[in-house]
C-alpha cells in the first residue's frame, strides 16, 4: 500500500461526486424508457446506494486494505492474483471507455473537424500529469473545481425553466414496470457500480470514521443531481426526441434563448471525465504495483495513458456501436466485477470477523 497518500473526507466526497458525474451526465441509459426515465433513475439510485453501501462495508471490515490486498487476503495468492488482474484490466478498460465517450462527445458536438485521437490525446496528457502528481493533487484540484460543475448544472437547469412541459412525463408506466426495472439495472452498473474503483482509494482516507456518511451522502447528492439532469432533458425535449438523441444535454442547452451554453456541458464532461479516468487509472496503477509488491506507481502514469488512448480508439468503430455496447452489453459484462465478487468478499469478511470475535 502507498502509505503516505492521504486525502480528507471533503476531498473524497468531491472525488466521488465527480466520478459519478463522469460521462453519465451526457450518456444516460435511462433515456431508453422515454417518459419513465426519471422513475428508472429513482429505482437505479436506490439500488446503487445499496451497492455502494456494500463497498463501504467491505472497506470498513478490511480497514487500511485496498481491493487488491483484500482479494489476496481472502482468495489466496493464486486466485487472488488472477482476480486482481481481472480488476486491473477492468479499470483500464473503464478508463478507455470514458475517454472514448469524451472523444465522441467532443467530435459530435464541438470539435467537428478535429481528429478524435488528438482530442483524446490532449485529455490523456492532462490525466497523465495528474496521475504523476499523485492522488492528493487530483483530490485538491477536484475540491477546487467541482463547485463550478454544480454551478453550471444549476445555471442550465434554471435557464431552461421556461421550456419545461410537465406533460412530457405522462403517461407514466405506459409499457409497464418491466422495462423500467431493466433500465434501472443498467443505471446500477453505470455509474453506481463503477464505484468499485474507490475500494482502491478508501485506504488513502485520513480517517475511516466518516467513510460511510461521506460516501453515501455524496453518492446520494450526485444521484439527485443526475436525476435533475434527466428530468431537465425529459421536460425540455420531450420523450419522443429524447430516445432519438445521442447526447441529449447538448440539444437541451440550445433551447435557451439568446445564450450559447453548450460549451458548459463539455466543460462539465471534462471535469467529471477527468476525475473518473484519473481514479480508474490510479486504481489500475496501484493495483499493478501492489501485485508486484513495489512502492512506486507514478512512473506507470504515462504508459498507462498511452495504452488507454490506443485502447479507446480500438474499442468501437463508431458512436452507435459505443451506445449499443454501453446500454446493452456493459451491464452484463461488469456483473462479476461490480456485484458478484464484492458480495462474495463481503460475506467472507463477515464470516472471518465473526470467527475472530468468537475466538
Amino acid at each position, binding site marked *: 500500500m502507498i502509505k503516505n497518500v492521504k486525502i480528507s473526507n471533503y476531498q473524497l466526497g468531491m472525488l466521488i461526486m465527480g466520478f459519478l458525474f463522469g460521462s453519465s451526465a451526457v450518456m444516460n441509459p435511462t433515456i431508453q424508457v422515454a417518459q419513465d426515465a426519471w422513475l428508472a433513475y429513482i429505482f437505479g439510485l436506490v439500488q446503487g446506494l445499496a451497492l455502494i453501501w456494500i463497498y463501504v462495508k467491505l472497506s470498513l471490515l478490511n480497514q487500511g486494505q485496498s481491493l487488491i490486498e483484500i482479494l489476496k487476503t481472502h482468495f489466496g495468492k493464486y486466485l487472488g492474483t488472477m482476480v486482481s488482474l481481472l480488476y486491473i484490466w477492468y479499470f483500464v478498460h473503464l478508463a478507455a471507455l470514458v475517454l472514448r465517450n469524451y472523444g465522441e462527445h467532443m467530435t459530435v458536438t464541438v470539435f467537428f473537424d478535429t481528429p478524435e485521437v488528438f482530442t483524446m*490525446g490532449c485529455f490523456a496528457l492532462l490525466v497523465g500529469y495528474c496521475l504523476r502528481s499523485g492522488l492528493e493533487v487530483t483530490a485538491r484540484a477536484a475540491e477546487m473545481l467541482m463547485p463550478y460543475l454544480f454551478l453550471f448544472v444549476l445555471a442550465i437547469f434554471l435557464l431552461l425553466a421556461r421550456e419545461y412541459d410537465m406533460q412530457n412525463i405522462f403517461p407514466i408506466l405506459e409499457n409497464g414496470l418491466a422495462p423500467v426495472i431493466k433500465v434501472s439495472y443498467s443505471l446500477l452498473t453505470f455509474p453506481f457500480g463503477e464505484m468499485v474503483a474507490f475500494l482502491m482509494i478508501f485506504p488513502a482516507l485520513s480517517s475511516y470514521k466518516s467513510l460511510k456518511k461521506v460516501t453515501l451522502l455524496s453518492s446520494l447528492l450526485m444521484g439527485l443531481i443526475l436525476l435533475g439532469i434527466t428530468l431537465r432533458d425529459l421536460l425540455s425535449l420531450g420523450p419522443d426526441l429524447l430516445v432519438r438523441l445521442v447526447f441529449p444535454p447538448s440539444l437541451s442547452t440550445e433551447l435557451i434563448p439568446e445564450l450559447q451554453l453548450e460549451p458548459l456541458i463539455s466543460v462539465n464532461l471534462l471535469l467529471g471525465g477527468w476525475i473518473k479516468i484519473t481514479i480508474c487509472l490510479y486504481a489500475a496503477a496501484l493495483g499493478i504495483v501492489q501485485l508486484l509488491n513495489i512502492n512506486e506507481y507514478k512512473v506507470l502514469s504515462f*504508459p498507462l495513458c*498511452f495504452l488507454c488512448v490506443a485502447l479507446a480508439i*480500438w474499442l468501437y468503430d463508431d458512436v452507435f456501436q459505443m451506445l449499443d455496447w454501453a446500454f446493452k452489453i456493459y451491464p452484463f459484462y461488469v456483473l462479476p466485477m461490480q456485484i458478484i465478487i464484492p458480495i462474495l468478499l463481503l460475506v467472507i469478511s463477515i464470516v472471518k470477523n465473526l470467527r475472530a470475535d468468537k475466538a
Partner: protein
Amino acid sequence: MITKLIILLVIAMIIVLLDFPQLLQAKSNKKIIIFYSILLISGFVLGTLLILDRAPQSPVIYINRVLNFFLGI
C-alpha cells in the same frame, strides 16, 4: 501514414525520456521496468496496428460473443 507512425514513435520516446530519471531511481528496478515496458510496447504496437489498419478485432466484440454464448444477449 508514415507521418502518423513517426508521431507515434516520437510520443513513445518522449514518454520514455520523461520517465527515465524515475525509472533509474525506482527501488525494485527490474519489476517496474518490465511492467513499464509491457504497457508502453502494448500501446505502441496497438497504435501502430491501428495506423496500418491491421488491428485485430476489438475486445468489445469478443466480450459480446462470450456474453451472447452464455447469456444469449
